């Protein structure tokens, strides 16, 4: 089964990097590197909610949870365990 982090990576590469993986590492900051802007974050959230059947609270929409592949991976694990 495909790992969540890989699914998110594929989504980001396809939707925000136009298929070019460039220098995207697990710790690359999406906001600082201009990969995702404030509107893009919402598209990412929609993807996460649909793909992993979760609900993300407004209070959880912080860079510490969403701003890199590693942050997202940790956040997803936490949210899936607690739900």
């Amino acid at each position, binding site marked *: 089964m495909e790992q969540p982090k890989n699914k998110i990576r594929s989504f980001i590469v396809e939707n*925000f990097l*136009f*298929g070019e993986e460039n220098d995207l590492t697990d710790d690359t900051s999406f*906001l*600082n590197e*201009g*990969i*995702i*802007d*404030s*509107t*893009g*974050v*919402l*598209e990412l*959230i*929609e993807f996460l909610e*649909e793909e992993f059947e979760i609900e993300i609270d*407004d*209070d959880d*929409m*912080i*860079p*510490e949870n969403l*701003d890199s592949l590693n942050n997202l991976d940790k956040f997803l694990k936490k949210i899936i365990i607690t739900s």
Partner: protein
Amino acid sequence: MTTDQVNIPEKICDNCILPGTFPGIAFNDQGTCNYCQKEAVSSNKINPAEKKNQYRLRLDALIENTKGSAPVYDMIIAYSGGKDSSYTLKLLKERYNLRMVALTFDNHFVSSTAFENIKKVTDSLEIDSITFKPSWRSIKEMFALTAKKDIFSRQTLLRASSICTACICLVKSMVLKTALEMSIPLVGFGWSPGQAPIQSAILKTNPSFSLSTQNVLKNAFPPELIDELHQYFIPDDYFNSFKDSFPHNIHPLAFYDYDEDRIKKELNELGWLAPEDTDTNSSNCLINAYANNCHISRHGFHPYVWEIANMVRQGLISRDLGLIKIYSKQNKTMINYAKRRLTNGAT
């Protein structure tokens, strides 16, 4: 105007209006773009009408819990005087009878008709109104720079020109700053249903996230320009001192019925008139044609095409109207007017 009179590119999506020059676009054998195909899959999973209804109920609940709790105003609205923000004002006032204040950011390129519209609409709806006008020098330098150069991320420039993004970034900051300072719990915007995704239509602003996005935007400007513009951004200490009172952002046109003709008709009843000196995608701004032209020259696609394609895909405007809005030639007189003012420095 008809579609025979516009310059439609050779390759565009047969379903929406995205051109072959749009980043990341690919077409299937039927001539439908990958963005339309993705939207079709998403609509199959969640019924768009049902989703809109859920958002209407969420707004009802939020307003029930919020209305009357703030010292003076329930909501501040970013008000350009254009069609969409005027209608947002009308919709929210009539549906919820909120205590509202409208904030207009005068970027020195607001059409005089738009100012008349602001007066007529706010007077008619009995809404207080504030106009904030930054100095010409700061605005001129910001527009002159963004006319020449793209300083924002590639992702941002898919949806708006550099000039527009810079201006909106100040509008959003000023509105949020005012909301925090006046303890206003709700912030309204008149984004069209194609402009911003529905999932952002009711969203509590998060201090930490807002600070990060503001820093990214500030870092995009050269330091000497930030010295000119810094007072229009939210001071860093606000993100902590006001952390418990960050407002909800709301853009209701994402989930209320949107019909341009009906909206104009309803606004006409308040005295609102469509300006004749703006481009096909704006009903308030006189720099937009120049902004569009700069973007098209640099990127090969219109900065509004993403928004208008979304609206065509959602069936909110006809494909023909979308083609006219996007592929009409930019008005040379308007381009030269903005260019001249930025070059000569005339206020």
